């Protein structure tokens, strides 16, 4: 459930609280009514035309690092 996709903020219209987001080459306008302090170049999760939350690059990298480590654990290299 709850289809949501991560996209980069490319422009913000402060007057309407609407951001233009880019998902690859696709662009779309979404509402920022549900999030505070979003800046251009932030990544946000988009759901039904709204930004739902910011995505943390640091946390994403940490998660990927854990995944890499899991694959390299000594007991699993056979």
């Amino acid at each position, binding site marked *: 459930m*709850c*289809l949501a996709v991560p996209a980069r903020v490319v422009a913000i219209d402060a007057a309407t609280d609407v951001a233009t987001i880019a*998902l*690859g*080459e*696709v662009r*779309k306008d979404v509402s920022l009514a549900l999030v505070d302090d979003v800046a251009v170049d932030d990544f946000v999760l*988009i*759901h039904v035309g709204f930004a739902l939350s910011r995505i943390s690059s640091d946390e994403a990298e940490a998660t990927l690092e854990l995944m890499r480590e899991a694959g390299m654990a000594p007991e699993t290299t056979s």
Partner: protein
Amino acid sequence: MSAAAKRFPVRLDVRRGVIDMSHGGGGRAMAQLIEELFVKHLDNEFLRQGNDQARFAVGAGRMVMSVDGHVISPLFFPGGDIGSLAVHGTVNDVAMSGARPLHLSAGFIIEEGFALADLERIVASMARAAKDAGVQVVAGDTKVVELGKGDGVFITTTGIGVVPAGVTISGDRARPGDAILVSGSLGDHGVAIMSSRENLTFDTTIESDSAPLNGLVETLVNALPDIRCLRDPTRGGLATTLNEIALQSRVGMRLDEAAIPVKPAVNAACELLGLDPLYIANEGKLVCIVPAADAADALTLMRAHPLGRAAAVIGEVVDDTHGFVQMQTAFGGSRVLDWLSGEQLPRIC
């Protein structure tokens, strides 16, 4: 189309005029519309004769005939419009038998109030598309329906062509071991249409791939007369087309997801709308199934053609009485690629 016997004192006001019921009434208004709009753009010796039918000689061989009704919203979309689409759709259906398409007929159902300027854009686009494809629109029909009873304009085209001797291309000829190729990236047309629909608007550089495939088919058929199946994956996309062939041929298929060409922008739009690019319509791509020994040649020929530069071998035909189309996912698992269910609807959950 019966052309008018004499000139019309006041020219059709294409810039500001709209279609009214008299344009379908069979009288002078209709005759003027035909002469000053349709024949003007689609002009050829058959239309000029002004008969209700076109008479032409054909060479010996097997005739192919196909019909396709075109209803599309919006009528004008990135990369094409209903006029070019109505030519490409039928040219491609004829060509997928291995035939060389020769002539088209076009039936227009136009809604009262439709702008003549838009109609002219559509007919002019149709004329260009026919010229590019090397076919002529030799017969036509115009009907007008009351306001609210149509969606602007519907166009039905019928095409005929001739299959060269020795060519037998059919959906029931796929055999285990055969290679499955596609001529380019998938999902472009459907995504371009969706991007311009009301309520779904998003900006993308993706244009419809709408194109006449008869040139590519002719190249393939001339070099590789043993081609088993050709089909253009229109509605229902690649997944549905392969399921149709699997059913007709009583075989299964095994695809490699990583080998299937999809443009990043198409993937991105599909992520946004919760759709699968393998179920999205194409209007300028073909699926080609050949004996494994011909696969490399087929790929080389396709890639050398302007409409096949991104061609790829995407899988093979396997022995499977259930007729399943299976796919090794790029992720490393496997899944069954089923027929499209209902229609592809954007979803939120």
